[in-house]
Each structure stands twice: as structure tokens, then as C-alpha cells.
């Protein structure tokens, strides 16, 4: 798909601009003088983004600004030099201190730490301990850090194959005697991976801390360094030996929260404080100095043994069915025909779907498909005995999952079906028992706090607590 040398010379350029470049003997990294119908311009030719149009040449001016020159304005281009510079992240040896805890950082591809190629804007991940030390030297105050890059995928491309590899490595890190594990991860599906790890690696003696960033680390305002520092504190010295997500508490730079891996969800596309514990309170706060303030009384404490229960499996033929009014039964029939073995419904209200789909649900049950009910309200419990419709759905063999979130229900069902592909009863048992805090016995009164902006008491609160 690529022509090796030539494509480097015209990286990202297509016709017509590429033809113009060739005509004047100009390649990427050429220093040029361009005469155009819109004036004369001098600068360095940069590679062009593959997604940008084919009409323009990007020129970096002496001032540092980039501009675009359109192909049909070019009268003449003169190459006066060539200046290619490789961008490299500076490395410094990560200081080793035998008195500090050992932490293993696994990379999955999210850019928790990265550097920018200043000319092209390309983000270069920093990952080796040396690179990380170069950009976040505070880490050396906390622990002896080792790193291993497992994948290089964006958050949305994480899936079952990655869960299996990741869980295996976490299990191995536990066995190898590390004091904590940090997992750098893209934020979009971090809660899915957190749930998967919670089920696959149970009874961990050490913290398994997932972390990411909402503002990439090439930005001065990035949350990446603070998140990474807080996560490393939690992994190296924190007392909570569970799979947790460590991300900003408020949007202000104040403290991080540790969320239980099975109750956390990304709730905003771009806010720093996007991760929230739903239907419960977070486990703890991590302060700037690394101290940890417990919020939740119940957590699994750190232990000295290495007795984790690692159960790695995942069934792909599982789905979430997000219910909407007027849903037609053929949607469910199609899933059955495609060989799906499990369906997690995100139902309305207390756990409802319309009557129209009942026959399809019955057909699915009879075909051996396991069907579970969760809520698209995200907060609250499935309660199918309140209304008659709920009771009818129960009669169809749909099993309520209390206050498990739809995403966690999906991951858990994939895991349970993977573990016991031929034992539906065992799967049902696993699904309805709490394995890793994914269902709670009740919801604390402050487990649902979506403040309504503009209301005087909310206004007063955010004035005081910096969001």
C-alpha cells in the first residue's frame, strides 16, 4: 500500500499538490521559496496529515507558524535547502532506590505520557522508564518503576484479545512480587477494561490501578502527569488491593479519586473529571502529596501473599441491547440467528421492554440464549416486580442484575460464558452473585449526586469546592 522511499518524500501529499511538488523538485523537509498568486512565502515543507485535503502544501515559516499554499496559486517553488530533524524523547536513567516499592507499568496504547513532534504535531508516546523520568521526574520519588508495553491500540480498539493478555500479565506481575501495578489506558473504554480485570484477576494482594488522561500530555494543562503520579502513589503505597481507576476528582487540579473497577463509568466526553462511581461512593481520594484518604469503608486491603485468583476467558458472542420505544422483535431474532449466546438488555425505568418483543425474547430463551436486565438510567436497581410488565418479562426468563451497569453486565457475561461455555446454570449463578463489587446490597443516599447547575445550593457548593 505504500511506496517506501517516495511516500516518505511526499508524506501525506496526493495529487494535485503532489504533482506540483514533483514539478518543482520539492519534497517534504525542503526549505523553499514559493512565488504564488497570493504573494511570496518562504519556509520548510512539512508532511501533511493523511486526512487533510489534497490541494494544499504545508509550510512552516521562520516565525514557527504553519500556513497552507494551494496548488493552483503556485507560480514557482525553489528549493533552497533541506532540513530533516528526527524528534526524540530525551531519556535519563530512572534512579533506582532499593528502599522504594517496585511498580510495574503496563502500556496499552493510551498516551498517558507523550511528547509532541513540534513541527508536525504528531504525538510520540513516552513510555520507557527513562522517557517517563524525563517527562515526569516526580515518579522517582515514589517507586522503582519498570514498564512493559503490551499493545499500541487506541481505547476503542481494546477488546477481548487484549483483556486476556493484560489479565495474564497482571497475574504474572502479582506472582513476580511487584508491590503494585499501573495500567496506562485510553479513557474511552477504561471502565470496560477495569471491569474485565476485576473479574479475571480476583483477590489480588496488590493495587491494580488504571489511569489515563483527558488532556494529552503534550499540553501544559494536561492532567496526564498528575494522574500518573497519583496512580503510582496508589499502586506503590496505597492500601487498596483492588482494580481501581485513578482519575481527576474535580476539574480543578486538586485530588484524584480511586473508583472501584466495577462501579466506575466515563460520564463526559471531554471533562477531566469524567470518571464517576455510580450508585456508590468512590473508594478513596489521592492527594497531591500522595496521601490517601479513605471514603469507602469496605475495600480489599493490601496483603503480603500472592494468592490471586486468575480466571482468564471471554466469550465474544455477547451483546448489549439498548432498548428504545418501538423496538421490533426481529432485532432479537437476528441476534439469535447470528449465534449470540448472551444478551444484556439496557431497559427503561426499573427494567422494562415493550410487549412487542416478548415473543422474540421467548424464542431466544428457548434457543438457549441467556438474557439479563440492566438499566439505561445507570443509577438505581432493576426491580421487575413493581409493575405487571416486569413480572411478565421475568416469566420470559430475563434475569435482573440489580444495579450492575450495562457495560459491566456485558463484560461479566462475556467472562462468565467464556469460563463456562457449556454450563448455563453455572453462568446464571456467577451472574447473580457479586464477585467484585459489581452489585451492591443497597445504594447509599449520596450514591446518586448529579448536581443541577444553576440551582442556588449547587452554585454555592461549586463556588466552595472548585468543582
Amino acid at each position, binding site marked *: 500500500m505504500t511506496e517506501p522511499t517516495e511516500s516518505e518524500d511526499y508524506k501525506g501529499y496526493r495529487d494535485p499538490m503532489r504533482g506540483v511538488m514533483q514539478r518543482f523538485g520539492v519534497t517534504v523537509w525542503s526549505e523553499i521559496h514559493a512565488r504564488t498568486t497570493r504573494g511570496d*512565502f518562504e519556509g520548510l515543507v512539512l508532511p501533511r496529515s493523511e486526512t487533510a485535503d489534497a490541494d494544499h502544501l504545508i509550510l512552516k515559516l521562520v516565525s514557527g507558524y504553519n*500556513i*497552507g499554499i494551494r496548488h493552483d496559486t503556485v507560480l514557482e517553488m525553489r528549493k533552497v535547502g533541506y532540513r530533516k530533524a528526527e524528534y526524540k524523547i530525551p531519556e535519563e536513567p530512572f534512579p533506582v532506590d532499593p528502599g522504594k516499592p517496585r511498580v510495574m507499568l503496563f502500556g496499552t496504547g493510551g498516551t498517558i505520557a507523550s511528547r509532541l513532534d513540534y513541527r*508536525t504535531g504528531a504525538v510520540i508516546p513516552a513510555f520507557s522508564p527513562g522517557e517517563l523520568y524525563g517527562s515526569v521526574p*516526580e515518579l522517582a520519588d515514589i517507586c522503582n518503576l519498570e514498564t512493559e508495553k503490551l499493545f499500541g491500540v487506541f481505547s476503542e480498539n481494546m477488546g477481548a484479545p487484549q483483556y486476556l493478555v493484560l489479565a495474564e500479565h497482571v497475574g504474572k506481575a502479582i506472582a513476580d512480587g511487584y508491590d503494585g501495578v499501573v495500567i496506562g489506558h485510553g479513557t474511552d473504554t477504561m471502565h470496560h477494561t477495569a471491569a474485565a480485570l476485576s473479574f479475571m484477576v480476583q483477590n489480588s494482594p496488590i493495587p491494580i490501578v488504571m489511569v489515563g488522561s483527558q488532556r494529552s*500530555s503534550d*499540553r*501544559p494543562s*494536561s492532567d496526564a502527569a498528575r494522574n500518573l503520579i497519583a496512580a503510582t502513589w496508589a499502586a506503590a503505597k496505597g492500601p487498596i488491593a483492588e482494580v481501581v481507576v485513578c482519575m481527576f476528582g474535580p476539574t480543578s487540579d486538586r485530588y484524584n479519586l480511586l473508583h472501584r473497577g466495577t462501579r466506575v463509568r466515563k460520564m463526559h466526553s471531554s471533562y477531566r473529571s469524567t470518571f464517576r462511581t455510580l450508585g456508590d461512593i468512590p473508594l478513596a481520594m489521592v492527594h497531591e502529596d500522595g496521601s490517601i484518604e479513605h471514603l469507602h469503608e469496605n475495600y480489599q486491603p493490601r496483603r503480603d501473599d500472592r494468592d490471586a485468583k486468575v480466571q482468564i476467558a471471554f466469550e465474544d458472542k455477547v451483546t448489549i441491547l439498548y432498548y428504545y420505544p418501538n423496538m421490533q422483535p426481529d432485532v432479537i431474532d437476528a441476534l439469535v440467528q447470528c449465534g449470540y449466546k448472551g444478551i444484556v438488555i439496557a431497559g427503561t425505568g426499573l427494567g422494562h421492554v415493550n410487549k412487542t418483543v416478548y415473543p422474540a425474547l421467548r424464542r431466544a430463551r428457548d434457543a438457549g440464549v441467556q438474557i439479563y436486565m440492566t438499566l439505561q438510567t445507570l443509577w438505581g436497581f432493576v426491580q421487575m416486580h413493581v409493575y405487571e410488565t416486569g413480572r411478565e418479562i421475568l416469566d420470559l426468563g430475563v434475569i435482573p442484575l440489580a444495579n450492575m451497569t450495562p457495560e459491566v453486565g456485558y463484560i461479566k457475561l462475556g467472562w462468565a460464558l467464556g469460563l463456562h461455555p457449556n454450563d448455563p446454570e453455572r453462568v446464571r449463578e456467577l451472574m447473580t452473585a457479586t464477585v467484585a463489587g459489581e452489585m451492591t446490597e443497597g445504594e447509599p443516599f449520596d450514591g446518586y449526586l448529579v448536581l443541577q447547575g444553576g440551582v442556588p445550593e449547587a452554585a454555592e457548593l461549586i*463556588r466552595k469546592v472548585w468543582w
Partner: protein
Amino acid sequence: MGSGSPAGRCTLRSSPVPRHRPRASAPAPIDLNPRTDTPLDYPVRAFGEMTPQDYATLGFMCGLEVHQQLDTRGKLFCRCPGGRWTTRVDAEVLRHMRPTLSELGEYDGTALMEFRTRKEIVYQLDRRTVCTYEIDDTPPFPIDDESVYVALQVAALYGLDRVSELQVMRKQYLDGSIPTGFQRTAMVALAGALPFPDSELGPDRMLRIRQLTLEEDSCREVSDIGHRIVFRTDRLGMPLTETVTEPDLLTPRDVETGGRMLARIARASGRVRRGAGAARQDVNVSIAGSRRVEIKGVSQHRVLPRLVHIEAFRHLELLRIRALLRERGVTAELLALPQLDPPWESPLALDARSLLRDADAEPLQQARDRGDMVAAVRLPRFAGVLGHRTQPGHCFDHEIIERLRVIACLTSRPFMTHSDDPNSLVRAATWRELRAALGADDEDAIALVWGPHDDVATAVEEIVGRCREALIGVPSETRQAHRNGTTGFERILPGPERMYPDTDTPPWPVPDAWLAEIDAALPERPDVREARYIDGGLSPRAARLIIDDDHAELFDTLAPATALGRRRLAAALECRLVAWWRETDARTAPDPERLRAVVEATDTGRLHPEAYDTVFDALLRQSERTPSSVVDDWAGRKDPEAALTAAIGSLRPRLAAMRFSSEPARLRWALGQVMPAVLGQLTLADVRARLIAAFDIGEQDA
């Protein structure tokens, strides 16, 4: 070179300061004054005592960066309203900034300096003026078309080459004035030259423009105390153009004139904001042998000449200090401070707490009581330098104190004293002891600094660092202007490496149709318009006022036929219209079609000019009546002669009853009584003649 860590200590402090030292990057060639022949023996002279030739001797050069807010509906990268100023605080957000590595794997000097200050940055939010974009919790929305259009218009007025495609860049600012840590900015146009007829150096000069960019405005600072800086976010994200000139302004007066000229031209677009803070300039100054220093955010043109004059002499004094230090054989090696923690465990510095005496001045006693750190720093062969005058009322020590205030965040003044200060806070005996302890001789200067432990550690490094920079003469800095024309340190001047592409914003092709439309409808440039008005009979002053007060469009729409008519209209717009605005407290744009009635009636001679202002006023105020009926009040009466006769008749007994000091006074009074009755219909000369005849008034003194 962090080799020497004291035994048993961690080499990293708990405070998150990277151990990378700012490596003073070589100044960009563009920052160096082309001349190196500093006139070191040039005497200090006050502003106003210097001719353009004197500034040429100094090698004075200045360029402007004019920041002009655009009068658009909304902000540049979000859809919040533009131009709403507020002091309301609905919420506050707290942030910090971290430096990011530059292209060469070094921290940008400015970036690192900002990080060393370890500031808490607080943003005040008013829900009516910001959304989540401003607080960096949402990626940018598409760039505002209207702003791009106006920027292209202004670029056309400046005669610049416009780019085919805008590429939004990020320009790093770690002072906190922008919550993202960078400003989104795009190059719109480059390279042009404007005639600069008002230059002190002759009417044929040109002012070259380097570039025009479109960028988002930053926050307004509320306070900056110690480690906490507070910003208001209402202005944040407003579109503005930054116009950068070449250093073609060679006298202080030309700096002001050039700034005014650029502002006028931008205003000709009719799409830029006016009023306090809507246009601010950064002024770049250098003299022979120095390099560019940027004075930030000057919002008034009239303060510019004095400001740049004082800055030019500050450069000269710093270059004199450099010459002196070179003569004394001071080198950077003499001022090398090993990277130790704390820095007072070095040959150049010591912990001076035990050396202070009870007889030393009050501030030092208080520092002792507070448990402050007190450090003494030896500055080899610097005796007398700290007391060398650099600006009116300031010596070289001010350069150091300002650095400490900004970078070390020392706030409770005084926090430093030194051995050059005749009124120093430390007694001679204490200085002797400090000298002995530091191994200093009479050629050395000693600085004593006190404050919180960590801040003093930074301060010691900064004192030595600033003195090391004295060897290069004028450090590249941005400075803030004070009211008295002096300046103070603000930041280290950032390098071009702080600029990189904004990956959140796609390239934005400039449509040919827009450029064609803009060029076709381009307003006349003010200097061209002004020349046309003067040709048309206006005085230079009237011509300029018409343009500067935004009456030009109205003036051209009404276009009186004669030179006299144009002068009359110009005067009425300046006096009558403005008076009406003041009266109604609103700048209501008058309907040109109404005013046309008075212009035409006078042009055709139907209305005599004596009534011009009265009719003009009436047209503005009697908006419920048709313009022709208003004019007819004065121009359309049936029989002016009869009216005059009647008026004279009724005046006769009153005139007889009064006494006047002279015949002309009598005539003036009579005219004043009669004239309103026939205003606009009979000329003053006619009425006057009738009165003289009717009352037999003597004309001898008239």
C-alpha cells in the same frame, strides 16, 4: 551535572521541579539589533531632549505587535458571546501548568521559569461569558467564520499577502493567562508595507508589516500574590488580530504615530472593537548592541514614546554594566552555581541566619521571628554594579528584585538588601562578618535575601542567574509597563519552539470568493481618504476628525456639492451630531436620507447657510416629521420680507427703551432679535442692511 548530592539525600526534592536547568537558547537572529557599535559614552538624557538623529546614534529600533479585538458576535473557538465584561464570579477552577519539552528535548526557558514559580492558577467564571471550552474541558468548536472574514478584511487594508489555508497553531503560554497553556492562533497574511507619511523622519517613509495572525485573547489578571495568581475569563477566547511590524520605528514619536496609524487602518474595516483594552500593543525595543525586549500590553498610544525612550536607556545602561564587568574580568565561570540542594551550600552562598545581629534592621528581625530562611550570596567583582542606575528611580538591583518577585514569588517586601545600598538594612559590622564568611573582598558585592525556605532556594539561583545574564548585556525578556514610564520584569522571552500545530482543529481553506468579495468592497484606507477630503476643501484637522470619529461613511453618503458645503457638513457632524449624542446619551446613527434634506437645500441655495445648524439639529430631533417639512420650517415660508417688516416693527419700541455702549452693540442686539424670524430665508447681510436703514444705526465702528 547533578553529581554532587549530599550524602544520604534524595537528589529530587519533593517539590516537582525538573532538574533540567533553563539553557539560555541563542537569541533568534531576528531578535538581535543589526548594529553592534553601542555608544557606551552617550550621556543620559531625558525624553524631549533628543532629536531623531540622537536616537539614530543610539541605534534605537522598535517594532510593534498590535493586538486588536474584532467586533464579532462571538468568540473565536466557541460560541460564547463576545465583548461582555463582568466581575461576577459563579465558580472558580484551580489549575497548574507543566512545561512540555521543546523540539530539542529541552524545556523552553519561559516554560521552565513559569514552572519554577509553582503557581496555583485560579480562573474565575461567569456563566454568561464562558462555556467548558474556556476552561479546557471541551475541545475547540470550529473557528468562527466571521472572525476569519474580518481578519482577512483587515489584512487587505494593510495590503498583505493572504495565505491559502489557515493552519491553527498552539503558542505556549505557561503564565496561566490561558487555561489550556497555549493560545490558538493562525497565520492569516504576511509581508506588506504601508506609506507612513506622518513619520518624524520624512513623508516618504514606509512602515513594513511582517505578519497578521488571528488568535484568541487571554484572560484578564485579577491578582498575582505569592504563589497564587487569579484570572478572570470573560475576555478569554475573544478573537483578535495580531499585527507585527518590522522594526521600522526609529524614534519614540514614530512608535506612537505608527501605532495610531495601524489602529486607524484597522478601524476603517468598521469591524474592530474600540474602547479601553480593545487594542493593546506589545512594543519591541533594542539599541545598537542589544537584543529585542518586549514590553507587553500597552493600551494607550500616548504613553509609548516615553516608555520606549526609558527602555532604550535601560539597554544602554545594561550594556555599560556589561562593559564594566568585562573590564573587571568577570566570566560566567566565576558565577557558576553548582546544582546543589539547597543552593546555599555552595561557595557563592551561605545560610546567613546565624550571622545576623539584633541591631540589623526591623524587616530582618521580623524575618528571623517568622523563621524565614536568610541567605547571603557573593557576587564576585560586582561591587557598585547593583547600585548602577538603569531607569529613572531604579538601579540594577531592581532587575534582580523583579526576578525574585516573579520567579521566587517573594512577596513581603523588602525581601532583599545588598552591600551597594547606602541605606542597606544590614549594619556595616554584619556586612563585614558576611564578607568574611563568604570569603568576599571589597571588589565583590553581597546580596542578602530572605523568605520561605523553598522560595529563597529559588531566589539564590535567580540572583546568581540574573548576574550571569549581565554578562550578555540585555537578557531577552518580556516586561510590563509601569505608569511612570519605567518597566519591570514579566517573563523570559519565549523562543519560536513554543509553537506547534493544533491537532484539534482541521486546516481551513480560504475561499477565493471571500477574497474577491472583500477586495471588491474594501473600505478606503484612511490616509487615502484623508487626502481626498483635504483635496475636497476640508482642513487637515477636519479631515482627520471625520475619519477618526467614524463619520466618514455618512459624510461620503451625503457628499455635499461644494467645498463650502463639505466644510459645513464636517463641522455639523463634529459639533451638532456629537452634541445630540451627548444629550441623548446614545450613539444613534442618524438616517442619511433625513440629513440629505439640509445638505441639498443649502447646496441649491433654497436654505441660507445661517440656518444650517438649526435645521440639522431639528432633523435629528424631530424624527416624527418628514425631513422636507422640517426644512420647510425655515426655507419654505411664504413671505420673508413681510416677516422681517413685522419683526422690525415690534422691535422698534424695545430698542428705543434700551441703551447700548456703542452703535455696533446696538446693531448686534437688534440682529439677534430679528434674525430668528427669517433664519434660512434672508441672508445676514440683507437683514443687517435693513436694520441699519430702519433704525439709522451708525456703521462707523462696525
